[in-house]
């Protein structure tokens, strides 16, 4: 049962990544958007090579959340075209495994975006990204996981709704506020002049808590919400 769940999730993720490697559509769109966001902020805020204190964490998470929303919409737009989401739901697999596969594919794409984004933020805003790389990676991974877990569920629910591009951020951002707050505050604790490791650890713990709630709810509700 569990092996079958992970087998299906793996195949769905692999299919998504194969399609992405061929088209590069979602990765390039998301990456250019994320880089543009960071550059616009740097043009507006950075003066004579100096950025104001404590802005880097906020800008990093704004770029992650906005570009992540874009990626979610595009990933499911692909399933809407030719109605392949229905074919996935018709398969004799656990329907939550389909959700897990889509989520994993999205996480790989967002991880690739963040690999470019984090050094760029460090460079433009003088953020000490290498001071505590493990904790920073944990904050980014957990924050992205929580955000993408909710976003994947909503993007799947909205795939046949005409105003899905408008509704996705309207639904997603209010619910993921706890994740965003934890991500921004935790990252800010690492980036500040005197890093507060205890505070970063607290926000990492909170992210684990929110991720567990969001993933459990998403896996639980995916099948009922996808069966109209």
């Amino acid at each position: 049962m569990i092996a079958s769940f992970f087998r299906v999730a793996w195949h769905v993720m692999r299919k998504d990544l194969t399609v992405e490697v061929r088209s590069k559509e979602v990765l390039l769109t998301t990456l250019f958007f994320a880089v543009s966001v960071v550059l616009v902020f740097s043009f507006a805020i950075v003066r004579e090579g100096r950025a104001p204190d404590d802005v880097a964490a906020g800008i990093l998470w704004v770029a992650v959340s906005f570009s992540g929303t874009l990626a979610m919409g595009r990933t499911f737009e692909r399933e809407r075209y030719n109605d392949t989401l229905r074919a996935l739901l018709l398969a004799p697999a656990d329907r939550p495994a389909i959700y897990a596969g889509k989520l994993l594919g999205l996480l790989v794409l967002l991880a690739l975006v963040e690999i470019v984004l984090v050094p760029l933020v460090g460079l433009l805003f003088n953020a000490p990204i290498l001071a505590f790389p493990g904790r920073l990676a944990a904050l980014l991974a957990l924050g992205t996981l929580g955000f993408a877990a909710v976003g994947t569920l909503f993007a799947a629910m909205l795939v046949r709704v005409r105003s899905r591009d408008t509704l996705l951020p309207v639904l997603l951002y209010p619910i993921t506020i706890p994740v965003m707050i934890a991500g921004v505050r935790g990252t800010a604790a690492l980036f500040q002049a005197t890093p507060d490791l205890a505070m970063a650890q607290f926000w990492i713990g909170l992210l684990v808590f929110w991720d567990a709630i969001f993933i459990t709810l998403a896996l639980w509700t995916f099948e009922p919400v996808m069966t109209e």
Partner: protein
Amino acid sequence: MNNDFETLSVVDLARYYGRRKALAQVNFTCRAGEIIGLLGPNGAGKSTLLNILATLISPSRGRVEYGARTAAEGGAEVRGRIGMLGHDLFLYPELTARENLVFFARLYGLTDVEAAAQASLARAGLADRGDDLVAGFSRGMRQRVALERALLHEPRLVLLDEPFTGLDQASTAALVERLRERQQAGCILVIATHDLDVADGLLSRAIYLKNGRIVGSDDDSRGLSERYRLAIQ
């Protein structure tokens, strides 16, 4: 328990979208080896009924019985015995025909996925185009791959939504032949179509739908156009 089923029963089925009635009081039973045609004008409820039979939509009232079990009772086991060809073909254009078939073979838990995909490509007459992207295929070629995708796991119940749309005469004839072959193999085939010329002589039974209700049915599918006109008027 045997996962397979010999009959498909639709019992007092209704589906509402808000206050709009898409289907009401739909009752019929099909047996293995039958080809059932759902005929009716646009908005008659044919696609909604197919989606309910495919377990993709829940009925607002009534039930569908796959043998002795409903979709809720059968879950993934029942879904594993259903194959569906939608109007939108359910294929990834960025993948090759073989990759599409292998992907779905894996989702259906088939053992030798490469052999299954190769056999499907051969049946579709595309053995030499298996490594081409589906995006480069004509409508007829896509339709053939999509049909083989739907039949990959040898389903008991085959649901087809407007399968003849956009096909030339040769492709239509090949599709009809393939459907007859599945009928001989004991499948239950349910086809929603507007194409009465093709359906004429193919169907075991025609069910006429109008405004979400069955307004007639016919065990003789020859001379279908005239009787369709009378039933739907």
